[in-house]
């Protein structure tokens, strides 16, 4: 009975998810990433064309005149380079091993990309949680960029994001598809376990972010209090 209602809930979530997909922050993020990626490629392509032009000019004026054939050859090379760079397939998603080796400032972004790639394999409620985690990771990126890699907080984050989270998701993916919805030994179904695990990761990320921010919050509060003490006196009344 319990499992039945849960399965129904999960299916309802799936349908909701399909409706949500079009306007979700995830889609917006993915779109933004695509646009940013396109402009980055465009930049490289233009640079490559300029380099060919410069090389052609140098060879033509110092080594040997290019002639009409050489000039056309250069044009062809330019076109080929330009379109190759623009059309080059996207680099593969980072593997957990690669994530573990990433520098701290790049870590949230890499994990986010990896999580994004795992998304289709996850059940609907977990997809939503994965999106939430992705959004949190993106929002926390500036905080982690400032973090000293030797600090315990940095170590904790790396452990969570680069080891524990991938381990959870990989563990789930190793479970055969047919068994994912079945509760085992009276406990939770793998689907549920994944969702619970992701929820813990999500909460932990929030807590880490809060703890990192608490220093800055304290500093701000201290400065406010200092101004009050200095210019208004102990009781906070204006003279």
């Amino acid at each position, binding site marked *: 009975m319990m499992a039945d209602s849960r399965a129904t809930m999960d299916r309802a979530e799936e349908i909701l998810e399909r409706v949500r997909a079009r306007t979700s922050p995830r889609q917006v993020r993915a779109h933004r990433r695509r646009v940013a990626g396109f402009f980055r490629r465009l930049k490289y392509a233009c640079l490559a064309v300029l380099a060919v032009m410069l090389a052609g000019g140098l060879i033509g004026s110092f080594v040997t005149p290019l002639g009409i054939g050489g000039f056309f050859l250069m044009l062809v090379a330019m076109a080929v380079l330009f379109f190759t760079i623009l059309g080059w397939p996207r680099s593969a998603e980072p593997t957990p091993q690669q994530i573990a080796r990433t520098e701290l400032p790049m870590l949230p972004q890499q994990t986010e990309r990896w999580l994004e790639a795992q998304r289709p394999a996850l059940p609907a409620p977990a997809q939503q949680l994965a999106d939430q985690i992705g959004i949190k990771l993106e929002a926390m990126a500036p905080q982690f960029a400032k973090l000293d890699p030797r600090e315990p907080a940095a170590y904790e984050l790396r452990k969570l994001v680069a080891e524990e989270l991938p381990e959870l998701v990989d563990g789930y993916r190793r479970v055969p598809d047919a068994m994912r919805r079945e509760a085992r030994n009276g406990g939770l179904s793998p689907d549920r376990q994944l969702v619970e695990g992701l929820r813990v990761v999500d909460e932990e990320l929030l807590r880490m972010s809060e703890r990192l921010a608490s220093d800055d919050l304290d500093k701000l509060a201290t*400065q*406010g*209090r*200092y101004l009050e*003490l200095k210019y208004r006196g102990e009781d906070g009344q204006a003279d």
Partner: protein
Amino acid sequence: MASTTTTDAPLVLEAPAPVKVLAPEKAAGLVPLKEQQRSELDAKVDAFVEELIAQDVNSPEFGKRVDSISNMGRKEIAEAAGQSNRFLDRPVRAMDTDSGVGADLAQLRRTVEDLDPGSKGDLFTRKKLFGIIPFGNRMRDYFDSYRSAQSHIAGILRSLASGKDELIKDNAAIDVERQNLWAAMGRLEQMIHLSKALDTQLESKALELDSSDPEKAKAIRETALFYVRQRSQDLLTQMAVTVQGYLALDLVKKNNVELIKGVDRASTTTVAALRTAVTVAQALTAQKLVLEQITALNSTTANMIDSTGEMLKNQTGEIHRQAAASTIPVETLQRAFQNIYDAMDAIDRFKVEALNSMKQTVSTLTTEVEKSRGYIARAEGAAQSQAEPFKALE
């Protein structure tokens, strides 16, 4: 006319008493809980105990619930511990004699001693070249020395003012830290309330079960109740340490406030002495002693401290009248210098006393923190990433 140049009642800086050791048993109940929080927490305990009793003693569910008791309050303890340890890291600026306010005050004292009319011998005798030929005027020379000293004094007073700002900033940080500690103590208090409620509930349930299901009663006493009592002890110890840290921060703050008062007084008395010198010089030598920085200083010191600054303003007329009327204006000047010395002596006395009570506080807190560290280590080791049925309410 005796008291006209003293700024006001003698400056008394009181060193606050050291923070005493607080017994863990007395630590609870210092932060009041709201009635609503109490009832919410009690409801949680009731539900938990009901569920625990309903489980089979040997089932993994029972074990899981018992384990979660040993995890109770872990986060709250760790949080509170982190904050009260920070007090020990806080450098006690007020007590630091080699830098900051202490060094500035020492420097001010040296400079002022050089200007003290009392140390110059009889200013009314004529100066003589080789002790024979009359040459120059001691009085004029004496007041000339103010000119060379003034920018130096201005520099010292400026750095005293910025030292004072540091102290105020310190106090602001303490206010924020105390606010955080208060919140942490509130959460600890909630956990203590929880563990006490659990204790009584489990105890009475075990009594009830003694006749009907002695095995379960035994299991409850040996596992659940044991863990609850252990956690209660941990929580109370941490609470005691945190409360002491909280009180110790108050002590540092009070010290700073006293020191700020002292710095204010030293600054104003110095400016008052300089100003008296200006007037007295005019009366004695008919020489106009112009100390450009005094006006600037007057306004800054008056801004710094309202009460004494106000007094300083009112005094000016008084000094003028005195210097003109008095037969011995040098005495007026000497009294002005005496005021500076009094202020500085008060600070020195205060520092000795305050340092003493700070030391006592720090050493008691250190031992308490050491004690609680063991508990924290145990709590950390006991339960990594376990379920937490009990959390402090926001």
